[in-house]
């Protein structure tokens, strides 16, 4: 019995593995998967599930009751493949993008030339929820604000890759990228050897080097810590994983202490020990009750004071989230031209900024064909997916947009590409996106691929793990691809 690829319904979509729509797939892989046979594939999938459970790879879903604190990470063994030549272009595009964004953030907290030169509207900044006045005039090490950025990429029906959004606050998911690779090595070793996907394992050491480069005491061996809100945070698995892989202390707010000398210390068995770099996985507003929310017990009183004095580096820098705004996203191509005097290598998804009258009119007239997004939501919340919406929902959104046009953008509903995924006992196409991670300090580094997220429900475009999405290993495969069968 073989896999019936003819019954594999992928029409109208670009599939990352199955040839069609004028692109050549990495043909050998399909044949190899077929050679394994459906029973064996299902058995391997089960082995992967057991592995993940035993390895304790988990994530938290806040909305669930009781045992949801560590749900097993959903993972599909069929990898998603990208040719190295394509990846080199993406890699360059991502570097360019994050470079421009860092220049932009630094500019916003200093002279705001970008506004004075008429490239970026003052109005957008005025209504930004993630702009932190506390950060104005601060000079973080190397002028970098977003040291770790996770940008989401999607591929449309014609095969074009777009940047869908940038996450510059505390992007997560990289630990799952690493763990997916580990599990795939365990369950598909023969395919793995044959296709030799480029390794991803060096991320933790790259991350450490990035963080260490920010140390205010470069002569010493820098004390780098990962700051977590604690085990009830949805990304706690990742926090502890990264600390472990980097050999750093994983600290909670209560482990840290800012002394009168404006330096940060951690409470250790030997007494207080100085901290140089904090990779913080706590949102800005919870970082320091002295500077932000006075009631928050998660953070460290005085941390901002120490940061401004240059005695500790924070990654990502507070205030970097100003560029997470989806309206800012819509300006990134202009920002690249303005700061780097270059054309964007990876395009944005065509985006209508509702603050502009023409775009507003177009959006209101075409809502059933568009996806409408508020400027500052994440995790797939608060959006209107036009084609799947009811009339009442569209009317509701029209009111919201008219009330606050600056807060909304709209984009054509994309036909996200698919990858074969094991559903029950057979392979079905499921929509995917991709989140590569970009590190920036004294130099830039992009992950080899990234985290591929899968919408596990048939036809669904929602890939967020907080909404039941799964994931796949992502292979960047050297060329030339296998000869066609």
């Amino acid at each position, binding site marked *: 019995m073989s896999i019936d690829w003819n019954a594999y319904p992928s029409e109208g979509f670009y599939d990352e593995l199955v040839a069609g729509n004028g692109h050549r797939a990495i043909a050998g892989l399909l044949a190899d998967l077929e050679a394994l046979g459906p029973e064996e594939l299902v058995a391997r999938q089960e082995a992967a599930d057991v592995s993940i*459970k035993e*390895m*304790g790879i988990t994530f938290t879903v806040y909305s669930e009751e009781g045992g949801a604190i560590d749900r097993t990470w959903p993972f599909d063994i069929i990898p998603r493949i990208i040719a190295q030549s394509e990846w080199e272009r993406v890699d360059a595009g991502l570097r360019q993008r994050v470079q421009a964004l860092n220049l932009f953030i630094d500019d916003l907290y200093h002279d705001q030339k970008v506004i004075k030169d008429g490239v970026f509207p003052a109005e957008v900044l005025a209504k930004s929820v993630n702009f932190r006045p506390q950060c104005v005039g601060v000079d973080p090490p190397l002028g970098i604000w977003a040291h770790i950025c996770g940008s989401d990429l999607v591929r449309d029906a014609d095969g074009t890759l777009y940047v869908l959004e940038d996450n510059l606050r505390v992007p997560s998911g990289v630990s799952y990228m690493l763990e997916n690779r580990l599990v795939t090595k365990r369950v598909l070793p023969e395919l793995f050897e044959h296709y030799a996907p480029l390794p991803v394992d060096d991320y933790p050491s790259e991350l450490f080097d990035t963080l260490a480069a920010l140390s205010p005491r470069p002569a010493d061996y820098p004390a780098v810590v990962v700051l977590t809100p604690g*085990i009830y945070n949805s990304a706690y698995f990742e*926090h*502890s*994983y990264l600390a472990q892989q980097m050999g750093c202390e994983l*600290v909670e707010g209560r*482990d840290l202490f800012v002394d009168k000398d404006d330096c940060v210390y951690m409470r250790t*068995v030997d007494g207080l020990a100085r901290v140089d770099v904090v990779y913080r996985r706590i949102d800005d507003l919870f970082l320091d009750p002295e500077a932000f929310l006075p009631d928050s017990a998660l953070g460290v009183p005085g941390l901002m004071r120490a940061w401004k004095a240059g005695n500790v580096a924070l990654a990502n820098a507070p205030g970097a989230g100003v560029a997470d705004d989806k309206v800012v996203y819509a300006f990134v191509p202009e920002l690249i031209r303005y700061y780097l005097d270059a054309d964007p290598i990876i395009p944005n998804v065509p985006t209508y900024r509702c603050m502009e009258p023409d775009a507003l009119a177009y959006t209101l007239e075409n809502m059933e064909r568009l996806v409408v997004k508020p400027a500052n939501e994440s995790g797939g919340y608060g959006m209107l997916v036009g084609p799947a919406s009811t009339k009442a929902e569209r009317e509701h959104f029209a009111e919201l947009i008219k009330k606050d046009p600056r807060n909304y953008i709209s984009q054509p509903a994309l036909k996200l590409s698919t990858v074969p995924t094991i559903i029950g006992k057979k392979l079905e196409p499921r929509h995917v996106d991709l989140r590569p991670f970009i590190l920036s300090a004294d130099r830039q580094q992009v992950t080899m691929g990234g985290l591929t997220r899968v919408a596990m429900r048939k036809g669904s475009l929602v890939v967020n793990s907080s909404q039941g999405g799964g994931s796949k290993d992502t292979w960047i495969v050297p060329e030339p691809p296998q000869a066609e069968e």
Partner: protein
Amino acid sequence: MLSRVAENIYWMARYVERAENTARIVTVNANLLLDLPKGIAPGWRPLVDITGANALFEEHYKDYSERNVVRFFIADERNTGSIASALIAARENCRTIRDFVPREVWELLNEIYLFAREDLPKGMTKGGRHAYLKRVIQGAQNINGLLSGTMLHDQGYDFLHLGRFLERADMTTRIIDVRSANLLPEETTELRPFETIQWVSVLKSMTAYQAYRRSEQIRVLRGPVLRFLFQNGSFPRSVVHCIEALRASLSKLPRNESALRVAGRLKRNLEGTEPRRLNQQQLHAFIDDLQVGIGELHEELARTWFPPPPETQTQSQTQD
């Protein structure tokens, strides 16, 4: 190392040790009961007495039947001494410091936890109980082995030892206390043959039987058994061995003066007594003293190295 992490690893070790000890006493009790004549068999209540959890037990159960006591010790999450609670707490502590312990340890602990939960229905049957408990004991032993073979032998390892040996010393004294006191009516000549069985069961609670035979070279008698379990430094579950191990770990830590003082007091108390000369009542008082000392040592560790208890935050630590 972070004070909080030190505390977590200490508790992780205590809970792993507790799960193992609990599995041991349930196993041995079951075996013992099969050997004793029905009329005088002490039943299952002494197990609850060992852990001093009688009030909690009586709050939730009508009688000290086998079914109830076994459930209380294996499955009942309201009992912090149960295998289920101990594994949950050990895993939770380990999860919090996942960055710190070797990942194989986390995986193994997770695996044992999952086994204990998923095979519970089998473990609760008479036929499946033995295999279930054996696997818990082996699991704990595997964790200890893996830790000693893979973890950095740094301060964290010292705190691991502190947790393990403090819990073990505590449990060893409890087992001797209850097992030596209430088992058989005293001075009943016709029950003589069963006295040996009683002391064999005490030894077996701690997998000490073979070690006792090799080391003491005499038959199983109250006096030598007590001496062996309290004072034989070569046996890894004896009280003196535990205290020596505690002292060794303490001596490597900074700011250790007062903790060492408490441990030294414990040691002198132990060495200055000849347990076999003590009658039942004196033995009980002696053990009481030791337990107070063990409690004081814990307090001293917490005062010296662990973080101050949080005032407003949610306590993620599971403790007694």
